[in-house]
């Protein structure tokens, strides 16, 4: 009990301030003071240097960066007549994008500083307590050693966390903020400024009947249809294939399995690009069909060039990609179904179809329902299949910068890397995809429950 209380106290800044002595209170202002004056020189100096570095950063760049965040620039780049040269020259204006980025960095640096500042308070208060109790303070070497023992998690997580912060969290914060600006093709820095517009992008996507709104609902609809079709057809196909290979009478089970695994072992971009070329209007598939006399010489099947055909084609080709994966996973599950269930069904005179519907499917469905939902989310974000096969095309005139097979994610990709760059809409679409994924994930976590009760599974 006492231990818990002591621990709680350590983490409360207010109690540290109220109960701390003068040196502890000084540490609130001058970081490391408590450690420095109590003999933990290196630790104290490290805190002090952090504070000095942060203050230097604030005065040299940080404050103006934070201030710039509010307006995102006021001075637009313009042409000014240079009298001495007798020509118009470009006068540099504010770069909204760099200002936004600097602002996000400044916020991140400040948050990092606050974490260290808090650690400084803890260290100061701890040093005071130990001194009061007449105990010896840990030396710097002992502090370091504790980072390989009790505080090992800090050592193990520090480098990965820096990576995550720099290449995941920072960019994501930046991109999310862009969703609330008008950073589209008409407001591209350095030539033009962009600024905050609140929820306008989301309104344009969701509520207005403009072209972009129509595109959003159209693409969203297809994304959901695609995700449902791709997930369930692959799932059922994979189960049937696994059953076919694992049925009693099938010879050479390992051989058949290897054949299907080989097809997914090839890098996806290779197989998908190859299939794209094969399915071209004058590609191998049409040549083959002509050779076989199924279609006449001057005709072809528009596998990828007609909107409706293309939609069917991507679903079918996705079966080619996905069925072996499901087969691999379901095979393991099938081998775990208790044999007694089948035997008692046989005694009751059930035929193969009834056993499949009544025993196999419920069992497999029960075990794989979380997998099914992750697959569904995966398919909402299935970039590879669509991008490499059709690149979202065929393009449609009713759509804003999108094609008939575009998913939300491939549309997002086109808006950020294509010729017309609308980062603001791209970001808003990304946030919508997040909301979709989050909704379905929540459902899936209710299914598994293992996330909440993880301790139960540990031994």
């Amino acid at each position, binding site marked *: 009990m006492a231990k818990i209380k002591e621990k709680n106290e350590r983490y409360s800044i207010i109690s540290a301030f109220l109960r701390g002595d003068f040196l502890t209170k000084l540490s609130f202002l001058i970081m490391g003071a408590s450690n420095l004056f109590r003999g933990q020189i290196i630790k104290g100096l490290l805190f002090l240097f952090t504070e000095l570095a942060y203050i230097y950063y604030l005065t040299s760049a940080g404050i103006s960066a934070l201030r710039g965040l509010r307006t995102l620039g006021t001075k637009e780049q313009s042409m000014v007549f240079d009298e001495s040269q007798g020509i118009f020259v470009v006068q540099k204006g504010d770069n909204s994008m760099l200002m936004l980025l600097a602002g996000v960095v400044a916020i991140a640096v400040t948050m990092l500083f606050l974490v260290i500042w808090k650690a400084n308070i803890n260290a100061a208060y701890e040093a005071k307590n130990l001194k009061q109790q007449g105990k010896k303070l840990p030396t710097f070497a002992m502090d370091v050693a504790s980072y390989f023992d*009790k505080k*090992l*998690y800090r050592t193990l997580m520090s480098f990965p966390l820096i990576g995550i912060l720099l*290449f*995941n969290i920072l960019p*994501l914060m930046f991109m999310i903020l862009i969703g609330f600006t008008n950073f589209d093709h008409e407001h591209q820095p350095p030539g033009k400024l962009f600024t905050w517009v609140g929820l306008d992008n989301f309104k344009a996507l969701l509520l207005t009947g403009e072209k972009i709104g129509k595109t959003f609902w159209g693409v969203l609809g297809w994304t959901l249809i695609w995700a449902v079709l791709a997930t369930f057809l692959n799932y059922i196909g994979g189960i049937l294939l696994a059953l076919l290979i694992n049925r009693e009478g099938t010879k050479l089970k390992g051989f*058949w399995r290897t054949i299907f695994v080989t097809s997914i072992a090839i890098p996806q971009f290779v197989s998908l*690009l190859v299939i794209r070329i094969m399915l071209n209007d004058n590609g191998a598939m049409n040549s083959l069909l002509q050779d076989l006399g199924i279609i006449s010489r001057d005709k072809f099947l528009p596998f990828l060039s007609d909107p409706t055909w293309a939609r069917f084609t991507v679903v079918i080709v996705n079966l080619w990609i996905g069925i072996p994966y499901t087969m691999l996973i379901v095979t393991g599950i099938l081998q775990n179904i208790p044999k007694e269930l089948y035997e008692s069904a046989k005694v009751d005179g059930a035929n193969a179809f009834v056993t499949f519907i009544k025993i196999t499917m419920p069992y497999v469905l029960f075990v794989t329902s979380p997998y099914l939902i992750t697959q569904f989310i995966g398919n909402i974000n299935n970039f590879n299949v669509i991008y490499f096969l059709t690149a979202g095309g065929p393009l449609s005139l009713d759509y804003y910068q999108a094609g008939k097979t575009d998913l939300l994610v491939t549309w997002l990709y086109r808006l950020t890397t294509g010729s017309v760059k609308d980062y603001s809409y791209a970001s808003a679409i990304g946030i919508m995809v997040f909301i979709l994924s989050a909704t379905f994930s929540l459902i899936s976590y209710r299914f598994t429950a293992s996330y909440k009760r*993880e301790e139960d599974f540990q031994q």
Partner: protein
Amino acid sequence: MSRYRRMSFNKFVRNVFAHILLFVLSVIWLFPVFWIVLTSFRGEKGSFVPYFWPKSFTINNYVQLFTDTQQFYYAKWFMNTLIVAVFSCLLSTLYVLGISYALSRMRFKMRKPFMNVALILGMFPGFMSMIAVYYILKGLNMTQSLLALILVYSAGAGLNFYIAKGFFDTIPKAIDEAAVIDGASRWKVFTKITIPLSRPIIIYTVLTSFLAPWTDYIFVSVIMGDNYDKYTIALGLYKMLEKEFITTWYNRFAAGAVIVSIPISILFIIMQRYYAEGASGAIKG
């Protein structure tokens, strides 16, 4: 007697039918593989030929892929990808193992919040932040370099801890505690006990992170731009199929695809055992 025979005859028919079906499916699944190998040995140039079976065979496509280096330098792309794959796989594995161990074995205040944040980050489309990553790299003056690729591929690795953590969770804690009582530090427990017990999950992590750079297209295309010398295989092969190159490079694309697919397929087949285990482990939590 006759009833038995009829039953076994039915069974025989069903077996034959099943095998025929499997054979047809195998042909469908191997068809693109077969066709790309065929194309890589095709003697006639050109992307789209109005017939299926090649008129002549040659190995020149393979030779030229390595000798004709004026436009594209396939061997160099291969080396680039290998370098990126080796380093990012080393870093990623260290990151994943470190984070997974900390989350599985140690209890600290930021543990649950971190796991929740990781969960949320995972729900945003991965390349949504790509453009911002590009500008950050530009700020660090690192675009169009292999180092940037290594950093980008390994940086997020710490977020993929679920499978390895699930594995660590299954190692009995009693082993750790016994070692701690004997005076071992946490670091010793991690390196001398947990790591040696985790061979399957290490192999799985190493292979998945090694394979990623070979198949990624999105990030390389944004980071490398038009610097052909720094391309990786995936981006390079994609480039060969663009309108201005496809006529000359089409057969060599096929050859290049075959070459890169062989080692990747072998690694994947080694990994599939762990893949199935990992996926079912993820289901169990």
